[in-house]
């Protein structure tokens, strides 16, 4: 059921995020500005300055403190938000692991940007891909609308008691963060109802009581202890369980959200575009899928059985969905906006190819590294990818498995 009184506002991706955070009436926002995330922090500061939110806004002296304060506020029972990109996310690195290990459901928007050196402020996925093992749920969105919707969904996913993990929502720097779009918004009440009050898992304290998991003088508990060889491993295994539960929860929240908004993003994990009978399939994350859809349509019109799989959820990795969606393809190309130096292709390529390994028949999978440091990629360049796939499908010769798109050779 679509929403009755539909309201549309012109927002860039960052503004859409800030607006969603405002509607979620988050308790604490702790953040530090960095291009191309800055607009999120600035817009939110305006909401604070104009008394439009009840949020405690902590404009920290660094990203390390921003994530720390988000984490500690979260452990105190608050609903928290932060945002960053590139160098800022890299500076948070240590604390990202602490946040997930502390099971704090912090929500963070990442306006994805290249990492230095050389310094570059433009969009690619190097920053968040470098954090893939930090224990955060990772979503990558296609447009400003999805950025808005995903921030709202993020609270419901992260705060589920059986998940209780932090989540990052990646939106491509500049391409999404700074481009104006029409964004359909929900009413404040609809958002409030949808996300509900923060849920807290129960834990057993040293006083022998089972109490909600938060720093509360009424129920003292010790968080962030030392765990040695005898217990550390167990806590890591628990985190993995949270991730597994997130796989289910993301899909549920995606459907629940569809009910109030009329919008959904595939099954929440992957977004399939004309995949049913597709022979040549491109897999990508983020905004590139917008352009790729147009190309798929063009190719379809010429009789090419092209399809697109947008990986919306990178962590937890939807292995089964990937397997099923790609098993009948004749050739697959995975697009990566980051590099894993000295490895075998980019991060998404590793994961997608690895997911297919156990299938009895699996298609050849090649990798394109593209768009680094905001390098433009034209529709005609993206078409080359499909042409290459058609060639592979025809000849069975994979050729170079890792390729660069849009690079001067």
């Amino acid at each position, binding site marked *: 059921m679509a929403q009755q009184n539909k309201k549309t506002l012109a927002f860039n991706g960052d503004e859409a995020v800030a607006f969603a955070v405002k509607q979620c009436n988050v308790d604490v926002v702790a953040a530090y500005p960095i291009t191309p995330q800055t607009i999120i922090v600035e817009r939110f500061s305006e909401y604070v300055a104009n008394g439009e939110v009840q949020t405690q806004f902590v404009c920290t002296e660094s990203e390390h403190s921003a994530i720390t304060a988000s984490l500690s506020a979260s452990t105190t029972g608050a609903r928290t938000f932060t945002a960053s990109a590139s160098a800022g996310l890299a500076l948070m690195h240590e604390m990202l692991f602490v946040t997930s290990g502390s099971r704090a459901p912090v929500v963070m928007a990442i306006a994805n940007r290249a990492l230095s050196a050389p310094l570059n402020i433009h969009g690619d996925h190097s920053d968040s891909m470098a954090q893939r093992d930090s224990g955060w749920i990772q979503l990558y969105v296609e447009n400003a609308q999805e950025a808005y919707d995903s921030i709202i969904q993020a609270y419901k996913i992260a705060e589920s008691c059986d998940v209780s993990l932090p989540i990052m929502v990646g939106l491509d720097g500049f391409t999404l963060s700074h481009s104006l779009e029409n964004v359909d918004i929900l009413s404040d009440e609809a958002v409030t109802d949808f996300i509900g009050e923060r849920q807290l898992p129960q834990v057993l304290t040293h006083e022998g009581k089972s109490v909600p998991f938060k720093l509360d*003088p009424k129920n003292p508990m010790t968080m962030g202890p030392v*765990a040695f060889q005898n217990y550390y491993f167990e806590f890591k295994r628990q985190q993995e369980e949270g991730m597994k539960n997130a796989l289910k929860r993301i899909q549920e929240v995606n459907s629940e959200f569809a009910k109030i908004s009329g919008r959904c993003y595939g099954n929440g994990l992957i977004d399939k575009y004309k995949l049913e009978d597709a022979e040549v399939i491109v897999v990508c994350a983020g905004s590139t899928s917008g352009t790729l859809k147009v190309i798929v349509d063009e190719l379809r019109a010429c009789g090419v059985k092209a399809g697109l799989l947008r990986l919306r959820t990178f962590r937890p990795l939807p292995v089964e969905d990937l397997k099923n969606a790609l098993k009948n393809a004749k050739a697959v190309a995975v697009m990566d906006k980051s590099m894993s130096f000295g490895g075998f292709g980019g991060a998404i390529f590793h994961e997608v190819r690895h997911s297919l390994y156990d299938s009895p028949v699996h298609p050849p999978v090649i990798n394109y590294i593209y768009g680094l440091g905001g390098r433009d990629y034209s529709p005609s360049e993206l078409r080359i990818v499909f042409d290459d796939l058609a060639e592979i499908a025809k000849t069975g010769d994979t050729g170079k498995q890792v390729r660069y798109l849009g690079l001067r050779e």
Partner: protein
Amino acid sequence: MTTQEWKFTSKDIAVKPDLFLSGHRACAGCGPATVMRLIMKATRGPTIVTQATGCMEVVSSIYPYTSWNVPWLHTAFENAAANAAGIEAAIKAMQRKGKLKEHIDVIAIAGDGGTFDIGLQSLSGAVERGHDFLFVLYDNEGYMNTGIQRSGGTPSGAATTTTPAGSVIPGKLERKKPITEIMLAHGMEYVATATPYYWKDMITKVRKGLEVDGPAFLHVFAPCPRGWRSDQAKTMEYTKLAVETCIFPVWEAVNGKKQLSTPSKVIALAPQKKKPIKDYFKGQGRFRHLFTPKNIHVIDELQRLTDENWKKLLQNCESK
């Protein structure tokens, strides 16, 4: 400061149950452990404690055991003040939304590494933003948890594992960073120094720091017999000698106005009671190499510096 003077007897404090519990794994004779107990004796109501990585964090939270009978959070080494900032922000937000009625005190605790060095940025940031919390630095003058390395708080002359007493270099050459001056320069309402030997003075200062409506900073001297190569039994004696030699004078500054606290005032009033720093260095293995003919000049130089600092402090306390 808003509330009335806190009056207590030794017996009041003795019967107040420990919130830093026995069974922690600090070395025998650990100065910081006494400091933890005393900090918690001064709490006045609902309190949340957050702590930087370091000896006191490790010895008190080895899973499944905890020595903290208050809500307690550790996240990392360099960010105790940022932890406090987030906790305080959460409290304020929940109070504003009517989800929380009571006042909650927030205490951040860190060693000298977590304060002078790696934690200085987050501390400075949190203080500049004016969060309502008390930061207690327990200064054992080195990175003890990782095996006695130098910190910005290690005094000159001391041997540590990264400033060993070599045949050419006699221990740490650099001076101790003037951390309280740095904190005072932030314009804090309350900055003080204390040692656990003068425990009444110390807990009074903890309480005053809590009563401040905003950030407060307390620098507590806390000998580590393990790292100082000193007699376990003398831990508290050194915290007395440090005051008597004016190596670590005790004072407090309310709104920047510095005043000597009684133990140091006694020495200011009767200068003949001021002991030579040798009395304090003696018995500490970390200074042993200074008592050789080759290095004895270092002690003379350190004595001169100590006298100079003391003189400055006296002038400072008088002129304001």
